[in-house]
């Protein structure tokens, strides 16, 4: 496309936005996000960054909207832009890690979690994800340190409260992997005290009891786990539709 025509198109597209004003567009995007209307939010934040490409927050929120709209490549680009523009933006780095994590690009995700934590060491979500990836790579001691750090933090939101229990669970799995079944059982009991429906914690508790020779308790926990697994499956028989 001819550069002049392209420039004209950008200006024309930006006209209504300019008419509406950056702040109004930005707020429209935020409202759309709250309403879980991610397509509208994406459109608004795209207009916002077109209007003010030097606004870090607009790029960050565009990343949020793109990510929520399952546009991973575009989300990665937006978060990268925010991270480049603000060397102290821990959330952009964490969220970039999250998108990569969702795409199973664990090594790259780990890099971004680590960068987020260099800026904000007590960033609980980043610390949890760092631990998860390290555990995936069997870097168990580092993973335990990450989950341990996570457990020392005080949750500031319900989401962080959930994350803390996730850290507790994974710390328990690592104790199990280290064949420290007493500690694994203790941690899983704590997880289950908070959330009795945690299927995997139920399994670890049962297997820890099994290892500790507490066979009857093991059988009880493992049978509970089996039933929970069956229930979670939500089987819905498939048949060919009748014509």
């Amino acid at each position, binding site marked *: 496309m001819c550069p002049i025509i392209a420039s004209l198109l950008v200006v024309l597209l930006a006209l209504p936005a300019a008419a509406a004003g950056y702040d109004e567009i930005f707020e429209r995007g935020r409202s759309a996000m709250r309403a879980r209307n991610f397509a509208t939010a994406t459109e608004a934040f795209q207009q916002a960054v077109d209007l003010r490409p030097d606004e870090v927050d607009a790029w960050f929120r565009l990343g949020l909207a793109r990510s929520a709209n399952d546009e991973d490549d575009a989300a990665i680009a937006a978060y990268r832009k925010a991270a480049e523009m603000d060397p102290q933006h821990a959330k952009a780095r964490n969220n970039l890690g999250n998108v990569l994590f969702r795409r199973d690009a664990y090594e790259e995700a780990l890099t971004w979690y680590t960068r987020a934590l260099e800026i904000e060491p007590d960033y609980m979500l980043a610390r949890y994800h760092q631990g998860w990836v390290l555990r*995936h790579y069997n870097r168990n001691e580092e993973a335990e340190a990450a989950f341990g750090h996570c457990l020392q933090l005080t949750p500031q939101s319900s989401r962080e409260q959930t994350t803390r229990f996730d850290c507790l669970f994974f710390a328990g799995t690592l104790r199990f992997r280290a064949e420290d079944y007493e500690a694994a059982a203790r941690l899983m009991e704590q997880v289950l005290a908070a959330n009795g429906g945690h299927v995997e914690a139920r399994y670890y508790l049962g297997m820890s009891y099994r290892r500790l020779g507490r066979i009857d308790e093991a059988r009880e926990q493992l049978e509970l786990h089996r039933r929970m*697994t069956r229930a979670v499956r939500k089987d819905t028989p498939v*048949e*060919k*539709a009748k014509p």
Partner: protein
Amino acid sequence: MRRKALLCITGVAFAAAACAGDRPATGTPPVPAPHFVDIAAAAGLDVVQVSGGANADYIIDSLGTGGAWLDYDNDGDPDLYLVQGATRDAPEGPPDRLFRNDGDLDGDGVPHFTDVTEAAGLGDRNWGVGVAVADYDNDGDPDLYVTNWGANRLYRNNGDGTFTDVAAAAGVDGSRWSTSAAWTDTDRDGDLDLYVTNYVEFTFERYPARGELPANDKPCIWRGVEIFCGPRNLQPAPDRFYRNDGDPDGDGIPLFVEVTAQVGLVPIEPMYGIAVRAFDADGDGDDDLYVANDSVQNLFFVNQGDGSFVEESILAGLAYSERGTEQAGMGIAVGDYDRNGFIDLAVTNFSHDHDTLYRNDGALLFTDVSFPAGLGTASYFTLGWGIEFLDLDLDGWQDLYVCHGHVYPQIDGRDTGASFRATDGLYRNAGDGTLTSFPGGGGPGMSIKEASRALLPVDLEGDGDLDLLVTHVNAPPSLLRNDGELGNWISVGLRGTRSNADGIGARVYVIVGETRQLREIRREASYAGSVLPRAHFGLGDATTIDRLVVRWPSGAITMLTEVEANRFILIDEGEVAAPGETAMDAETLEELRSLGYIR
């Protein structure tokens, strides 16, 4: 390439005097590593194994087909049976094939295989999946059990190069969608019984094709890709177990009795059976059974000593992954990879999960060590099928080979991290519980990208290294000749008299200095196939085995001493002591007992 070494031996007395090995002495030993070269086409194995429609519109298009190594004509070299599937448009598929091994006639290093299907009276055209070989009638030649969607076949080997299907008369034809099967003498009466895994109660009329909306209005989607439905939410087909009652009226037709429930081989609910392997999990002298199921838990049936079973998968740690999640079991490897005297298991699973390595800690307790071993992370994006513990570099540690290939052709070009056709996995056992890679990567054969399914190891030329036949979906198989410069070896076959004819279920121990290795004689492969009943050992630099001990299914024990390496030996049960007696010295017997090898 080394010349074939073959030795037949009966009993203890002749062991030390066995003929000398033919492996030439070498100077500085090279770093051992397998080097695989595909010789299938040159060997005449260029037949496409049809296995469903190319678009995989139905679940039946997904399983692929297997095959079997067997010496059907008893001429000493391995022949090959290849299973053929079919398609919806042509449900009577191409015939299964039997290829006779005519050896390396022109000296080019490649054996030639001749299609003898018709002459052998074979050529089943049902939609086949797998085949299980065994000498079920103990007459000295291998018979065939073919698993199909529809009626299965039991081909009795007539001993003259021909076969007769006796499945219906014997009561083992079934009518379900059978996948794998294992022959095992679970009641230790001297003949082999039969476990058959069944998958889904499938018909084209019952289930929607890919793209059709099911009656429950839930489209079948995987990671954004429209796929065939199942197996979850389809009706599972229950497995079957048949007790071999011999040929009571002497008419050449065996009598098999379906005793699945009677002997306790019934899970808490029907599951999607894919593969089965017999192994002695606790070293108590009887065969236990492990069944890999798709999408749900796996099963572990512990033999109570009388041929009856108790299902103990969950308490043993063998039902789920480390995290207690259901996986999608495909193939099963059995072997003592850590040389602790107990048989470990490895199970292949779906992509975006991981293959699972279960370390046997004894006392019927297993630990999922997939991630500590390095297998968990490495197998995350791959969908595995055939898998075996094999000493591919002959260093004394069993390595791991894994067949890869997805079930959804539609994932190609999508951002899932996986692909329909994939290279297989090759892991070197580092000897410290971890799996690493081989220097050189295993040669050009490891670059083949296909949708692989069955893995059938064999020592094709009798030169002591393990070659591999790998089947592929809708493609000819690969025959991977191992051209690596490797360590020393020994291969052991058995001829049972009180036990079943091939010694299926026997344990073979090789002791060199402080090093102890264990194998069991089995026919079933990890998925949909069979192999020769051999115990194959890599010995590294060792040229002599201090002690070679066989624990027969009958309970009898054979011990050979000072056995030279680099040969195949055939040991006859007839020359050994009766059960409870032993020709070995008390010190050795106590040592083997203390190690848990003998009870």
